[in-house]
């Protein structure tokens, strides 16, 4: 049976996209019906329709904030990837280096960003930069640990083959270690992209910046103070959508570069 003759819902591609959309629509529908039927006041739980209206009405304001948050997220994600990969390459040079430095990488990971954000905001006078530093701290660890794991996860047989053919250190890195590490690296990217967004939002909560440089976290805080609950929800929706979008981009990137050979990207 070819794809065109299949019932629409039996098509895996349709299932992957349509099924979650359908679930979302049903949940939103129930939410809307409950809000209307129980006459829930808008300052407790706004209905999806209320949130939608707010999204449109506050669009310019919220989109401006989204851009601020997105900028910090992307900058810190980029920084986390570059620094994380560099750190990973340093770590795999020798067991001694890894043993002496890795505990501090873990220290970075286990220290809550909320706890160190005030310090960083004091030390770094530029607010945007301070937020980027905070979000980078949150996002960098999975990049380091996954890339290290990947660079070490080389098939020993292939390593013997390279040795037997007297491959240089550089050839082994380029042709064996880096390709072997890619699946792990992309796994790290997926986690790091989400963490960069969380880091950007959390750091802004702590920093509490206002004015023109206000991100979505600031809008949520302000909306809370003003009991403008629909706007709070609207900002939340934008943050969630950004997270989903980032995740999808990372997944697509992994599929694009691994799809032709790695098991994780099959089917």
């Amino acid at each position: 049976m070819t794809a065109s003759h299949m019932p629409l819902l039996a098509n895996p591609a349709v299932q992957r996209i349509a099924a979650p959309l359908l679930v979302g629509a049903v949940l939103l529908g129930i939410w809307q019906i409950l809000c209307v039927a129980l006459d829930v006041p808008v300052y407790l739980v706004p209905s999806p329709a209320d949130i939608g209206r707010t999204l449109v009405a506050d669009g310019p304001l919220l989109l401006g904030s989204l851009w601020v948050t997105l900028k910090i997220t992307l900058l810190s994600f980029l920084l986390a990837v570059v620094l994380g990969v560099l750190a990973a390459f340093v770590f795999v040079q020798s067991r001694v280096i890894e043993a002496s430095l890795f505990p501090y990488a873990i220290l970075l990971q286990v220290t809550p960003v909320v706890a160190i954000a005030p310090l960083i905001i004091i030390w770094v006078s530029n607010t945007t930069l301070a937020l980027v530093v905070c979000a980078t701290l949150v996002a960098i660890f999975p990049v380091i640990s996954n890339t290290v794991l990947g660079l070490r996860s080389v098939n020993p047989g292939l390593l013997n083959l390279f040795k037997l053919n007297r491959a240089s250190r550089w050839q082994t890195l380029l042709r064996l270690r880096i390709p072997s590490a890619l699946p792990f690296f992309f796994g790290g990217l997926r986690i790091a992209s989400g963490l960069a967004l969380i880091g950007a939002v959390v750091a802004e909560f702590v920093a509490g910046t206002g004015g023109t440089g206000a991100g979505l976290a600031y809008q949520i805080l302000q909306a809370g103070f003003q009991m403008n609950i629909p706007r709070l929800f609207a900002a939340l929706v934008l943050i969630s959508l950004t997270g989903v979008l980032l995740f999808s981009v990372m997944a697509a990137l992994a599929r694009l570069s691994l799809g032709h050979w790695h098991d994780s990207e099959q089917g």
Partner: protein
Amino acid sequence: MNAVLDAAAMVQSNPHNPVHGVPVLLANGVEKTYGNGTHALQRLKLEIGRGEFVSLLGPSGCGKSTLLKMFAGLEQPSAGHVRWWGKGQINHSAAEQKLAMVFQEATLMPWAKVADNVRLPLDLAGVPRAQSQRRVDDALQLVGLGQFGHVYPRELSGGMQMRASIARALATEPNLLLMDEPFGALDEFTRNRLDSDLRQLWAARDLTVVFVTHSIYEAVYLSSRVVVMGARPGRVIADVAINGPQQRDEAYRTSAEFIQQCAQLSALLAEANAEGGH
């Protein structure tokens, strides 16, 4: 380069009689003791001449893979020495002293197409692309994968992956081929076919093969000589010449000669295992 495929010419220039002169491989008084006290090899002496097909046959733990790794230069003996063409180390610049190894698994890079996998040793050695491409094509043709250069290893069956692995070794045009239980994970039918192809390949070239296996039938079918090894500590128990015909086919597997040789090796192995059990 075309000589790769020109089997007839090669047979004439290389009658497979053990050539007297410098042995291709020589292990003398070789010992291997691991840090945990395991005695993998004990005072092992073995000489392998040009053009021989030697199988190292023995139970697991007899050090046959360790010995092969030493022959490949991947492991150092704790005592004694290994000689390659009479020298204390492999001379990588000598064209007629090339060594290649085929591992237990196909060991292909999953991210590279079959042809790129086969080309790898040539790339690492800096062979120009125009030249390496022809050698890769020839090698793939030789193992029957001429149509599969542009697919990824995951799209091949286990037997075909092993063929690609052999093609990778052949592309370097080796004089010495070390094979570590290459067909151990394959089904019997595929294994028999690959054995027969390997035997033909060897007969057509100036090639010395050292083949590790724990299958008596495989050893007898392939080899001109079988070295039986015993375990704990690993040592040579018997060195048996296989006097089968030069041309071997499926009929050889059921011949009286074949069965008699297998029985002889089986008895030797049983003896070795009984000793090892103490």
